[in-house]
């Protein structure tokens, strides 16, 4: 331990030396050596200038992780991952950034076009090293001032650790403990950065958080950490991700998101995930192992997860709600698409602890090409959860005859007054439907997109308006070439 603290001290002083050149210089700094050990943790923590308690917190996670093994219960075929061969701290590099859109892969540009991404955003998304990014930062600052007037804290995780350590310390790991699961433990040990938001009592956040920040948020790295707290009676809608395809040199992504809703508070969390899925054979795609969980701590609190998952080679993700408060409400709305060689094992957990707690699960899985799509969901009703209710609807749509859809519901009820309903359907996009649309004048792709959007409607309508329109286009683009 003594040697470790020494290393840490040395690294810290080096990092601080670099810091006098400002933030930009700091992120240009080099990477940690490959491999994961306590010194790597010390390096990361020092780089980020973290307080001792957080360093200890990371170490505890690392030590738990070391004792754990990768989960293998998901219906996923994953090539072995070399955790000791990976780099756990790597500053973004700018040397290779394209200088203008002319240098960007035309295929990528064509997709931006189809998605209707504004021109200015396209440059930033494609990683063009221009001032566009600064534009969005200044927009961000304007909104931040407005939020600050209401007492809302919305900043990067790192900034929250510096500016609001008491809040971070009070809530971090209280929903997803460090030793929760293999990937959450890994994230807790080495998380890079992420977002933090705190909405004070009685405040209704006047804008969708992160709409104006999405470009910057997209660069937060492979081990993202998000913590959102809605205090008593507060409301917030949070958007994560982006419809534009995102590439990343790191194949392994393991994020953790924790939500806390106090009495009468409501959190709506919407995600559009479009990480690089790999080529047609699935090579090079992102592995996305995410732990997302919300705690409805107070009575009558509400948390809803809405996700549109179209990217990644492998998706392992179960946004969940722990319904502790009486009369609290959880919801999960999901669209997951797998095309080509993509695999998704996704679903939710609804844990009913308080009385009269209610949950709704609507899952729409779409499989095309050789995609494999699994819904895995747990509804658990604890003995004290008098009057708990759950409604689950799981629909799968198959396009072509080489893909697969699987539904794995787990239901555990320990209170006789609970009411749990589960409905599931699997259907194939029919030639009849496509022909009907085409006979009315719609082209192949428009016909497919119309049918698929109809299938997903119950989920898409839960997304904020602007996001929903983009998500609809994204569904169409994701399924391009899967018929005809």
């Amino acid at each position, binding site marked *: 331990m003594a040697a470790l603290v020494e290393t840490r001290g040395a690294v810290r002083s080096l990092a601080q030396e670099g810091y006098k050149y400002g933030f930009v210089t700091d992120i240009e700094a080099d990477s940690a050596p490959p491999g994961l050990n306590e010194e790597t943790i010390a390096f990361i923590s020092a780089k980020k200038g973290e307080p001792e308690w957080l360093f200890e917190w990371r170490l505890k996670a690392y030590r738990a992780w070391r004792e754990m093994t990768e989960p293998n219960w998901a219906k996923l075929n994953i090539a072995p991952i070399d955790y000791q061969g990976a780099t756990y701290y790597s500053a973004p590099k700018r040397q290779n950034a394209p200088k203008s859109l002319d240098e960007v892969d035309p295929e990528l540009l064509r997709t931006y076009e189809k998605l209707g991404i504004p021109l200015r955003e396209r440059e930033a998304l494609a990683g063009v090293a221009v001032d566009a990014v600064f534009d969005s930062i200044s927009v961000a600052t304007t909104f931040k001032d407005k939020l600050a007037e209401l007492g809302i804290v919305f900043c990067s995780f790192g900034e929250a650790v510096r500016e609001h350590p008491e809040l971070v310390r009070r809530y971090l790991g209280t929903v997803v403990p460090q030793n929760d699961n293999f990937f959450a433990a890994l994230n807790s040990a080495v998380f890079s950065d992420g977002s933090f938001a705190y909405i004070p009592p009685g405040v209704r956040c006047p804008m969708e958080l992160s709409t104006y920040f999405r470009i910057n948020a997209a660069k937060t790295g492979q081990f993202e950490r998000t913590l959102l707290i809605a205090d008593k009676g507060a409301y917030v809608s949070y958007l994560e991700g982006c419809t534009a395809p995102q590439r990343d040199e790191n194949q392994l992504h393991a994020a953790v998101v924790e939500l806390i809703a106090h009495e009468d508070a409501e959190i709506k969390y919407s995600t559009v995930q479009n990480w690089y899925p790999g080529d047609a054979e699935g090579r090079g795609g992102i592995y996305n192992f995410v732990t997302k969980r919300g705690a409805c701590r107070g009575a009558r609190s509400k948390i809803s997860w809405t996700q549109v998952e179209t990217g990644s080679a492998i998706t392992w993700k179960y946004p969940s709600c722990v319904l502790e408060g009486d009369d609290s409400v959880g919801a999960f709305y999901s669209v997951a698409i797998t095309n080509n060689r993509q695999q998704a094992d996704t679903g939710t957990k609804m844990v009913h602890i308080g009385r009269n707690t209610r949950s709704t699960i609507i899952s729409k899985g779409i499989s095309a090409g050789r995609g494999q799509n699994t819904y895995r969901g747990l509804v658990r009703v604890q003995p004290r959860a008098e009057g708990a209710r759950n409604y689950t609807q799981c629909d799968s749509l198959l396009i072509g005859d080489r893909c697969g859809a699987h539904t794995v519901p787990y239901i555990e009820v320990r209170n006789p007054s609970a009411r749990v309903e589960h409905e599931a359907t699997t259907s194939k996009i029919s*030639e009849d439907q496509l022909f*009907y649309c*085409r*006979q*009315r*004048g719609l082209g192949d792709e428009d016909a497919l997109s119309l*049918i698929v959007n*109809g299938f997903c409607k119950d989920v898409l309508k839960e997304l904020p308006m602007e996001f929903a329109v983009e998500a609809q286009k994204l569904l169409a683009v994701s399924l391009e070439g899967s018929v005809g």
Partner: protein
Amino acid sequence: MMLEIVNLHARLADPRENRREILKGIDLSVGAGEVHAIMGPNGSGKSTLASVLAGRDGYEVSGSVTYLGRDLLAMAADERACAGVFLAFQYPVEIPGVNNMYFLRAALNAQRRSRGEPELDAGQFLRAVRARLKLLDLGEDLLQRAVNVGFSGGEKKRNEIFQMAMLEPKLAILDETDSGLDIDALRLVARGVNGLRAPDRAIVLITHYQRLLDHIEPDRVHVLQDGRIVQSGDKSLAAELERRGYGTLGDAA
């Protein structure tokens, strides 16, 4: 001629299916403004003829079909639709989650775009819709329901004619639009179709029974049997068929 069919043959393309010929050399000419009825017993090839004209995949087709001077068989299904060929389906297809109004507007605008016409905005579209709903005695609630989902048999058929009224095709093929309709629904459908008769529009009615022709008077009647047109005549042929049945006709050919 609006539609000129010469020696049309068709069979299923899938080698796993029964590959016998379904259409065995059909010749048929339909002029603008005309209403032709194609009658015949079950399995005579009526619906296959409708599918082949509309461009459904899965058939191996030979012969020629000229539509307004163009080679219809060389066009994709959606191109045919955009060029004014409309098929009222015998079994209209359900599309869950897509509202009827949205579907129809997407279809209409796709067709307008292909003709280089401006798209209709929501207001213009709604005005056009209201006028035509009245013609078929359909309620506005139908527009907000998912395409054909939970529609009664009669509603589905009336919805087909409503779509035809909105899309204003040049050649409309109605495949057994009368089947499964009670007499009131039949009258409404017939009123709709009659309202759409026009000098620049041809209508091909495919039907098993003569009763539809009591309400929609055809210019020509053709009898399709075992993949061939075995007899053609004026409307009196339909009445004769009703009296004598299809059984006696094969010999007359």
